[in-house]
C-alpha cells in the first residue's frame, strides 16, 4: 500500500530513546548505542540464583573492579550483531580464497617433513588454547555486568571458536585432510612437557572467579604474548627459509588479534583509569599473568626456535610491556 503522506512536513517528536537522550542528548543514536547501553536489567530482581544464592542474577560484585558507570566500558569497534557478522563474513570470504589457494597448490603439504612437523608442534596445540580462550570469554559474557561488556565478550567467544577452527584447517592443509595433525596437536597439548605450562595456566583461568581478572589474564596478558610469538616470531622463522605459504594463513589470526586488542585495550584502560584500586588490581593481575605467560612459552620457544628463543620472547614481552604502558599500567 502506498500512502500519500505529507511526510516532508512530519517532524519526529523525539530523536532517540530516553535512556540514550539522558546520556548523549536528544539526537539520533547509532545502532551500536541502541543495543550497547542500558538494556541489561538493573533493579527489582525476582529470585535468588540457585547457582549463586548470595548474589543477584546480574551482580556488580562478581569482580573486584568497581565502576561508577559500567557503560564506560564501550567497544571502540562499535560492533553490534549485524556489523559484527557482516565484518566477519567478509573477512572469512577473503580467507576462504587463501585457503582454497593453499589447498590447490598444496602449499603446506609440499613443505619438508621436518617443517611440517614443526608447524604441527607449534600451531596445532593452539586449537585447544583457543578453545580455552573461548570458555574464558564466555565466562566474561556470562558473569560480566552491563550490555556493553557482555555483547563484546560473546563476540569474542564465538571468535575464539572460529580461530580454533581456522587453526584446525591449517592442520588439515598440512595432513591432507586426514586429521592426523589434529590428533597429534591434541596429544601435544595434553602430554608434551613443553606445552604443559600453557595448559596449566589455561586451566587455572577456568577456576579464576573474577571475570575482570580473566579479561586481563586471557585477553591482554596471555594473548598479548601468544599471538605475537606464534604468528609473528614463529611465522618469521618458517618464512625465512620456506617462503610465506604459512604466513598467508596465519595473517588472519594476527589481524584478528590486532582488531580485538582495540576492544581489550579500551576496556582495560578505562577500568584502570576509573580509580586507584582498580589500577592496582589490574596491574597486579597483569604482572602475575605476564610472568606466567612468559614462563609457559619458554619451553615451547626453545623447542621451535632454539637459540633464537630468548630474543624472540624478549621482543614479544617488550611489545606487551609497551602496550601495557599505554594503558596506564606502569610496569
Amino acid at each position, binding site marked *: 500500500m502506498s500512502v500519500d503522506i505529507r511526510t516532508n512536513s512530519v517532524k519526529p517528536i523525539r530523536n532517540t530513546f530516553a535512556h540514550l537522550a539522558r546520556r548523549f542528548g536528544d539526537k539520533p543514536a547509532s545502532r551500536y548505542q541502541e543495543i550497547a547501553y542500558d538494556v*541489561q536489567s538493573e533493579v527489582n530482581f525476582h529470585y*535468588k540464583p540457585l547457582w549463586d544464592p548470595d548474589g543477584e542474577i546480574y551482580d556488580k560484585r562478581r569482580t573486584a573492579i568497581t565502576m561508577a558507570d559500567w557503560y564506560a566500558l564501550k567497544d571502540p569497534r562499535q560492533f553490534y550483531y549485524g556489523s559484527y*557478522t557482516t565484518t*566477519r563474513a567478509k573477512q572469512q570470504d577473503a580467507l576462504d580464497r587463501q585457503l582454497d589457494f593453499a589447498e590447490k597448490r598444496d602449499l603446506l603439504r*609440499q613443505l619438508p617433513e621436518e617443517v611440517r612437523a614443526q608447524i604441527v608442534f607449534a600451531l596445532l596445540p593452539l586449537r585447544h588454547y583457543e578453545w580455552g580462550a573461548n570458555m574464558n570469554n564466555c565466562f566474561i559474557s556470562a558473569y560480566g555486568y552491563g550490555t556493553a561488556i557482555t*555483547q563484546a565478550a*560473546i563476540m569474542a567467544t564465538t571468535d575464539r571458536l*572460529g580461530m580454533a*577452527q581456522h587453526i584446525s584447517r591449517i592442520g588439515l592443509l598440512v595432513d*591432507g585432510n586426514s586429521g592426523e595433525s589434529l590428533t597429534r596437536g591434541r596429544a601435544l597439548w595434553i602430554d608434551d612437557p613443553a606445552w604443559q605450562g600453557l595448559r596449566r595456566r589455561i586451566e587455572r583461568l577456568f577456576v579464576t572467579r573474577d571475570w575482570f581478572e580473566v579479561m586481563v589474564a586471557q585477553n591482554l596478558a596471555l594473548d598479548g604474548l601468544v599471538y605475537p610469538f606464534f604468528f609473528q616470531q614463529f611465522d618469521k622463522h618458517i618464512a625465512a627459509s620456506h617462503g610465506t605459504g604459512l604466513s598467508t594463513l596465519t595473517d588472519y589470526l594476527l589481524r584478528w588479534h590486532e582488531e580485538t586488542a582495540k576492544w581489550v585495550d579500551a576496556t582495560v584502560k578505562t577500568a584502570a583509569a576509573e580509580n586507584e584500586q582498580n589500577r592496582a588490581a589490574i596491574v597486579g593481575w597483569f604482572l602475575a599473568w605476564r610472568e606466567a605467560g612468559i614462563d609457559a612459552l619458554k619451553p615451547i620457544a626453545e623447542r621451535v626456535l632454539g637459540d633464537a628463543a630468548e630474543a624472540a620472547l624478549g621482543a614479544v614481552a617488550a611489545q606487551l610491556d609497551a602496550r601495557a604502558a599505554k594503558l596506564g599500567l606502569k610496569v
Partner: protein
Amino acid sequence: MAADGDLKPIKKLSLKENYALLTRGLGWEPTYEKKEEIFRTIDFEGIKIHDWEKWEDPFRLTMDAYWKYQGEKERKLYAIIDAFQQNNGQFNVTDARYVQALKLFLNGIVGLEYASHRGFNILGREFPGVGPRIAAQMQAIDELRHATTQIHAISHYNRFFEGMADFPHQFDRVWYLSIPKSFFEDAVSSGPFEFIVAISFAFEYVLTNLAFMPWMSGAAFNGDMSTVSFGFSAQSDEARHMTLGIEVIKFLLEQDPDNVPLVQKWIDKWFWRGYRLLALLATMMDYMLPKRVMSWSEAWTIYYEENGGALFADLARYGIRPPKYADVTIKEKQRVSHEMWSIFYSVRNAVGFPVWLPSAEEMDWFSEKYPDTFDRYYRPRFEHWRELEEKGTPFTNMTLPQLCQVCQWPCIYTEPDDPTEFVHRETEYQGETFHFCSDGCKDIFCNEPEKYVHAWLPVHQIYQGNCFPEGADPTAPDFNPLVAALQYMGIKPGVDGGLMSQHVDASRWEQWTSRPANLHEGAITQAVRKTT
C-alpha cells in the same frame, strides 16, 4: 604423512566429517584443576550425564558458515529497515492502533531476549561437553541478535509515537512487565539443565511458533515490513534453537532413566509458565491487530494441539507424557484473550498504552471465531462498556489487582469448567498466605516455595511504598500514591494510557496521515474529517 613430491590427492570432506574434524576433540580432561571446580553448577539439580560425547549436533554449523549465513540474513534485514526508515514506513501500517502492540513488544520482549542471551552465556560456559557448549554459545549470540534487531526495527517508531522511549527502565519497573521479566529471571536463576529444558524445549520448541508465526504474519498483514522482517529473520534462528531443544530433551532422557521424572517436572512447570506468558500475545493477536490472520484459539489448535501433539507422541517412547494442565489450556483458549483485554481496558489509566473497545464488526468476528464463549460472556460486557463510554462515563477500575505469586498476572482467570467463576487458589507458607491464578501456578509454588517467596510483586511493592520516584514526599498533602507509582514505572499519567480515542498518538496520526487512527472506528479529528 605423505612424502615430498609424491602427494596423494586430498580427500574431499563431507559436511559431517568437516564439522567433526574442526570441532570434536577441542575439549580435554583437565588435570591441573579439579573438574568439579571448573564446572561447578552441573550437579546440584540431580541430572545424570554419563557421556557428553553422545551429544549430536543437528546443524553442524562451523563458525565460518555461521558468520556467512547470519551475515547474509543481517544484510537483507537492514536493507529493509533502512528502506522502511527512509520512506517513513511507520505511516504505511494499518493505523495507530496497530502501533500500540509494538509498545508491548519493545517494552516487554527485548528484555527477555537479552536475559536469554545471558542464560545461554552461562550454559556456554558451564556445560562440560564441547557440542552442547557450542550450541549454547551460538544461541547466546543469536539471542543478542534478537534484542538488537528488535530495537533497531522499532527504533524509528519511537521517534513518532509515545510509550516506547524508556523501554529498559519500564521493563524493570512496570507492573505488568514483571510478567515477562519474572518468567525469564525464573529460568536464568535455575540450574543449567532446568534452564535449557525451560527455554529451549518447553518455551521455544513447544510454544514460540505459536507466538511468532501468526503474530509476525499479522505484522505483515498490517503493513509493518520492519517488524515482520526482524520477526521472520529471528524466527529462522529459532528453527535452529528448537532443534537444539529437542536434541537436549533426547540427550537428557537417553543418558539416564533417573532424568525422566526431573525432565517431566520441568516440562510441566515451564509449559504452564510459558503458556501464561503467552496470554500477552493472545491479547495482542485478538485485540490489538487491526487486521487479523487467525484467532488465538485457531493458533493454539494448530501450533499446540496439532504440532505439540506430534511432538509428545514422539517423546512417549521415553516415558514422557504431555504437560500437566494442557487440558486447561484447551478449555481456556476460547476465553483467555477476552479476559485479558477486559483487565487492560479497566485499568487503562495505569498502563503504558491506550486501549479501546472492539467495534461491532470486530465483535462479529469474535462471535464467529469464539462461538462457544463470545456472545455469552464477553459481548454483553463490551456492549455495556460502550454504552458507558458514549454516555461519557466509561467504566474504569482504579484498584490495582491481586497478582498471582507465580505468573504475576492479575488473578482474573476463570475456572476451567466455569467461565463465570474466578479461579482463586491460595496456600500458606511460613505463616503467610500466597495467592494464585490457577492450579498450574499453585503447583509451581508448592514445589519450590523458597524460590517464589522472593518474587518482586509490583502491586505489593506499590502498596508497601517501594515504588515512588526519587525525591517523592508521601507526607505532602497533594501526594497521590498511584500517580507517584506510575512515574516510578516510567508511565506518564495522562499521556501513555487511557482511551485510544483521546490519545495523542491517535490525534497525531490523523494529522500526519489523514487516515483514521483506529481503522474500526470513525475519525476522531478534523484532519481526517476534512479529507474523507
